[in-house]
């Protein structure tokens, strides 16, 4: 090995040659490699790539990212995989998330993915979790969506531009305190860009629904400790968009806390209220617990001034008249939809549980022009 290394004088001569060549031609000289050198270089490159691949874990995101029944399990399995890797893997290994296969994303499901990315960047050391061009989405529409909704900001990338003008997105907003400016910004965004939410009554119910969802996330979602997971206490995410295909305004709030059932079991209401609701919560499944909570059949507190927050979630759909409210918490999903005078609700308990609670409002919009 030592034999092949050029002497100091030779190396210096080569350095001077390169320098003068660069001065004269403004570029590096081409080096003609012989067969042996070429082979060595190839081997070196291959071993570096091998080492890099060995130290990297790649999580491949599924083609469809959605909480709909058909794709929920696949999506949540990948999320759980990311979660497991982040908290159990050797810190010497780096993690990459492969977005290349994605063909469809529901922006509300994206809130779950974005929160997981945020958690990862909090847990993994700097440099161990980063964006790689190799794993960027291939689908142009997905590229636009992720750029315009601010997904890459969670990877500390702010260069993405969006060209998809058919959909309009309010960027994902994240905080750990109930700072409500984002709610007013989202409402302004819907008003200015979409000429929507004009009446004072609807404005108030919109504000109340979202601010109460955020305040609930901060106050109730992170009670106690969650073993084996590094949550960000108080964290919440909101995002919204308008889809001209379905003519719907979609917006939601997500927290990665302990879920509605656990939170109710830990509720610090007074003793009588506590005993009566605990028995109900313990025997019911997640979806039924969500329904009980939203229909105000759980008295968690005997204080006169408490327990009005969750009413606001349904009030928005009730007041508006054409839309739906979806609440996902752990393995439960409860949907209540209203179309004029018709009101329907659906309860579903799934096999795979997600972290925390996701509340999504969908409102049918009549757009001018």
């Amino acid at each position, binding site marked *: 090995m030592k034999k092949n290394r050029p002497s100091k004088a030779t190396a210096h001569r080569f350095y001077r040659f390169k320098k003068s060549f660069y001065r004269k031609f403004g570029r590096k000289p081409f080096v003609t490699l012989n067969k042996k050198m070429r082979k060595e270089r190839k081997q070196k490159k291959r071993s570096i790539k091998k080492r890099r691949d060995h130290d990297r874990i790649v999580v491949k995101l599924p083609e469809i990212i959605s909480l709909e029944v058909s794709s929920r399990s696949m999506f949540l399995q990948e999320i759980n995989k990311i979660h497991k890797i982040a908290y159990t893997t050797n810190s010497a290994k780096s993690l990459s998330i492969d977005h290349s296969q994605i063909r469809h994303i529901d922006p509300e499901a994206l809130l779950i993915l974005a929160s997981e990315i945020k958690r990862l960047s909090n847990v993994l050391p700097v440099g161990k979790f980063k964006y790689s061009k190799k794993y960027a989405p291939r689908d142009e529409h997905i590229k636009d969506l992720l750029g315009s909704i601010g997904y890459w900001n969670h990877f500390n990338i702010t260069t993405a531009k969006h060209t998809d003008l058919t959909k309009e997105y309010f960027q994902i907003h994240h905080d750990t*305190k*109930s*700072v*409500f*400016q984002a*709610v*007013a910004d989202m409402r302004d965004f819907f008003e200015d860009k979409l000429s929507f939410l004009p009446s*004072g009554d609807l*404005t*108030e119910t919109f*504000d*109340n629904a979202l*601010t*109460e969802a*955020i*305040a609930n996330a*901060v*106050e109730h979602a992170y009670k106690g400790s969650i073993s084996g997971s590094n949550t960000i206490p108080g964290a919440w995410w909101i995002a919204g968009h308008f889809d001209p295909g379905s003519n719907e305004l979609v917006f939601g709030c997500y927290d990665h806390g302990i879920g509605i059932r656990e939170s109710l079991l830990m509720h610090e209401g007074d003793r009588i209220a506590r005993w009566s609701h605990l028995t109900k919560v313990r025997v019911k499944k997640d979806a039924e617990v969500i329904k009980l909570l939203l229909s105000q059949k759980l008295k968690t507190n005997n204080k*006169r*001034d*408490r327990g*009005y*927050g969750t009413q*606001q979630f349904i009030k928005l759909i009730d007041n508006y008249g054409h839309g739906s409210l979806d609440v996902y918490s752990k393995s439960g999903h409860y949907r209540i939809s209203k179309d004029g005078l018709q009101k329907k609700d659906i309860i579903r308990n799934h096999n795979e549980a997600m972290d925390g609670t996701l509340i999504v409002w969908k409102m049918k919009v009549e757009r001018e022009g």
Partner: protein
Amino acid sequence: MRKYNFAREYSPYPGPRTENIGPFSGARFKKEVLDPQFASNVPIEIDVSGIRLSFGPSFMSEAFGKCAEQYTKKRLFEIVRVPENDDPRNKRFKELLKEYADRATKK
């Protein structure tokens, strides 16, 4: 009477119930603004025309509902006043004030 511009002197975004949940809470507003007015017995006229976000149930019950509970509903309307003008936010605020005072003192 003290004139108070809510958006300028407190915040254009009324906050949650208590300060540990988020800034500009109802509890802080009661402690810093309303309680001293009740103590000095000087009425306060709260103008909310500049706010950018509606008053939520948590803020209203913690700030004004608690005052009605603590000082009686009658004293609340003696001390807390709302400007008589055409601004829809002030009109709505007056309605909310009554609603939350009633709720807090309901037996």
